[in-house]
């Protein structure tokens, strides 16, 4: 790998495995605490394995900016690239080019089309994520009433998939709950904040908000905690304990969910290493050892499942720091 992609290119399709344990993490964007935590896990894992860790990424979560970084990784001839995709299709070609040059590609958090990567490390299965959030909100609003969704950007793959599943699950299990609107805060504090304000004004009968994104739920909680709706409009979704601690303690939010992003990064790094070393190819049924997390098996479509989402509430939030 010292000579760059040129030599990597030969190793392209070979199954033999290599010792190039350079693993680069490419989150959706930098400056996002969620990815900060996942990269931390990744770094721990890479150090355990004895490889070289790097984190690169654009300032803004757009696919075109991500492509430049994928290309760079290709040029550098890294061993594996661990990506959270800003678009399932737009970065595909770049990823495939990287794979052609011998780079193993692992997606985590947000997947691409299955044919553009070797593995997808799924934080929790989509149905599970959708279900836990809907169940939480249903419990908090008493199983009936209007709810709304505050999402990330309009094109976020994972968010959109969850919202679709939530809608189905609502229709089948909670017919009395209506999802009145989905708005997009673009994973920006201020936009999410202002969209929350607008939601509350536009729908005076709103009972609850689901925000399946860590930035969104924090901003929404901040607005709610300062408004008259505090305590009357429920809020749940996916958030990090550190950002939500304040609002759980002051009663704005009773419970929310998330997996451990640190573990997600950790697992992704181990999976990447396993691919590099040729222990697995990404085929269904492959198994690999993921350090402290134990053994994992590759499922259908080259997907590895981290586990079930975890529910945070006032009782347990004190135990976490990420």
């Amino acid at each position, binding site marked *: 790998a010292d000579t760059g992609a040129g030599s990597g290119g030969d190793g392209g399709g070979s199954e033999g495995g290599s010792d190039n344990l350079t693993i680069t993490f490419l989150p959706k964007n930098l400056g996002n605490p969620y990815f900060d935590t996942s990269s931390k896990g990744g770094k721990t894992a890479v150090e355990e394995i004895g490889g070289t860790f790097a984190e690169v990424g*654009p300032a803004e979560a*757009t696919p075109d900016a991500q492509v430049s970084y994928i290309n760079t990784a290709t040029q550098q001839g890294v061993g594996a690239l661990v990506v959270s995709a800003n678009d399932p*299709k737009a970065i595909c070609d770049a990823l495939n080019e990287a794979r052609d040059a011998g780079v193993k590609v692992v997606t985590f958090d947000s997947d691409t089309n299955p044919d553009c990567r070797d593995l997808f490390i799924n934080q929790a299965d989509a149905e599970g994520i959708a279900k836990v959030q809907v169940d939480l909100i249903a419990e908090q609003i008493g199983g009936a009433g209007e709810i709304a969704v505050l999402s990330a950007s309009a094109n976020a793959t994972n968010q959109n998939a969850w919202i679709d599943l939530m809608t189905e699950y609502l229709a089948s299990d909670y017919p009395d709950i209506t999802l009145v609107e989905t708005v997009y805060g673009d994973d920006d504090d201020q936009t999410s904040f202002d969209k929350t304000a607008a939601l509350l004004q536009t729908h005076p009968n709103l009972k609850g908000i689901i925000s399946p994104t860590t930035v969104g739920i924090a901003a929404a909680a901040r607005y709610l905690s300062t408004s008259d709706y505090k305590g009357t409009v429920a809020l749940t979704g996916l958030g990090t304990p550190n950002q939500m601690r304040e609002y759980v303690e002051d009663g704005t939010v009773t419970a929310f969910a998330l997996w451990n992003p640190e573990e997600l990064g950790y697992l992704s790094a181990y999976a990447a290493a396993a691919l590099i070393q040729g222990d697995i190819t990404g085929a269904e049924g492959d198994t690999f050892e993921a350090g402290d997390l134990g053994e994992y098996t590759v499922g259908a479509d080259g997907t590895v499942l981290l586990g079930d989402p975890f529910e945070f509430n006032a009782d347990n939030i004190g135990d976490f720091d990420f």
Partner: protein
Amino acid sequence: MTATTATATTRVIREHDRPLWHRVLLTREMAIIALLILVIVVAMSTVRGFGQPITLNYLLLDVAPILLIALPMALIMVTGEIDLSVGSMVGLASVVTGVLTQAGAPFEVAALAALAVGVVGGAVNGFLVTVVGLPSLAVTIGTLALFRGLAVGLLGTTAVTDFPEMWTALAKAKIAGTTIPYITVPFLILLVIFVVLLHFTPFGRGIYAIGLSKDAARFSGVHVERTKFILFVLAGVVAAFAGIFFTLRFGSARGDNATGLELQVIAAVVLGGVSVFGGRGQLHGVVAAVLLIGVLSSALRLANVTSDVINIITGGLLVASVVAASLLAWAQRLRARIPPSRLTASSAP
């Protein structure tokens, strides 16, 4: 008029104030080109992986939209106007291409429609600036939001991803035997067109005249409004073309494609020596500046420098380049003891 020659004595005026080498070499454009070469040489020898042929491919693909749009933008800025809506137009054209392809139109038709949208968008800007007489900065802040809003509104959460393989492949295809992407061909054609337009036609003389003095240009029979209108339309079309390229390259039409591109384009155009006050600038400087920024980011990325540092360096370079230019002018004035001329002081690039 022959009689007027009666007074014509022997005095023949010289063509140039300064010697040729002075005029050609001591220019801002040349400084940028020199810097570009320097950065390439340094990157080749110190950044691992930069020397590969594929670098050129990635580099050109990355900067292609900026290169394309910088051409009409430079002309617009020479007239003293600005177009902030180009990034949004890239997005809108991308979405139009996507929506129509999705609706079953052949890709070629969709692309033509996107170009037409570019014409219309450019014409809207042009109309508001020239006929209604509004400042272009204000107008294009408005259309920046409008075009982006239309793009996002048309596609919502979806992204169109099925484009004909033939076209998406072409967008990334390399010219046989090289790593140069095909997009270079239309770019070079446009470059020739714009260079001729700006530097070798009466129209181009008008563009400079407008930038230096709108009144004087109008009194000389320059169609100030028409010229500006045409330039805005050109910017619209080229941005739309860049949008189609963008769509094909990533195989994905999204409402937020190329967000923020306008500032990158303007930064490059200014770095290339075009004065934001109008009347000054040349295209070789602009092209060199786009490449300079591209090469610099590419090399820095390869050296695992994070995006924020790259931004600082880009911003710093922009500031340094203009500050250096004005320091140089200041030093020259000091040597020659020329007072800061009232008019030139405000028109330094």
